[in-house]
């Protein structure tokens, strides 16, 4: 496994993967913690179909979503189960993006979905050290 502190043997590909993984981890952690600590401000984002589907309050959906994003974001940050974690997060964000639609926020989330999917696709055992 490649040690990222071994600078001489760390390739640009390794640094790129590290930047992508930590950047996306920061993103999911930030929004996850925001939902946990400030649920009220996120309730308006909960779509009606989600409430009808899950039969729980919008505030609870925000809380559970925050828990999910913090947990999966932590796995990305720690470098555990990166590929499956990124795949789940990409699917999760894709649903949010579809729900938001073609707006500035929707396009931004689409790009983040693609970045998360890219991490799931290109992360490999060989690059586990990143």
């Amino acid at each position, binding site marked *: *496994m490649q040690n990222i502190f071994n600078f001489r043997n760390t390739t640009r590909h390794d640094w790129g993967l590290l930047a992508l993984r930590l950047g996306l*981890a920061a993103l999911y952690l*930030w929004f996850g913690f925001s939902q946990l600590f400030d649920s009220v*401000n996120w309730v308006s*984002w909960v779509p009606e179909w989600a409430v009808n589907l899950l039969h729980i309050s919008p505030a609870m959906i925000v809380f559970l979503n925050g828990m999910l994003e913090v947990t999966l974001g932590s796995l990305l940050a720690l470098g555990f189960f990166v590929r499956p974690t990124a795949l789940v997060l990409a699917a999760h964000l894709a649903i949010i993006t579809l729900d938001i639609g073609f707006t*500035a926020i929707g396009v931004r989330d689409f790009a983040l979905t693609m970045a998360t999917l890219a991490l799931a696709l290109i992360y490999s055992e060989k690059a586990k*050290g990143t």
Partner: protein
Amino acid sequence: MNNGTSNIIIGIILIVGIGGTVLAEKHELLEESQPATILPDATVADTADSITVAEVATHNSISDCWAIINGNVYDLTSWIPNHPGGPQAILQLCGTDGSAKFNDQHGGSSKVLSVLAGFKIGIVAQ
């Protein structure tokens, strides 16, 4: 230092750092909340245009969104796509008196009030 250890150290720093920052930001917003600052804004706008409730009610769409908040009238059309809490939160206020919803959501946060002040177009006609 082996690879697993370095990953865990970086990961923990990231998790604690971001969690702490978000928490600190929330505390900062709470400290800035001053409920008493909500109402005076409506009373100092004596020279502003008076707009009737009926007039506000006609501006009730995504392309033309006015709302009454604490006695003032705001044109929130341009704010709809930029609202951090999502466009739906603003859309539900279009053409209505959104004071209760606004105050429940934001209290007297001075940051929020300063943003809101930029959209003021008048006061509610008595």
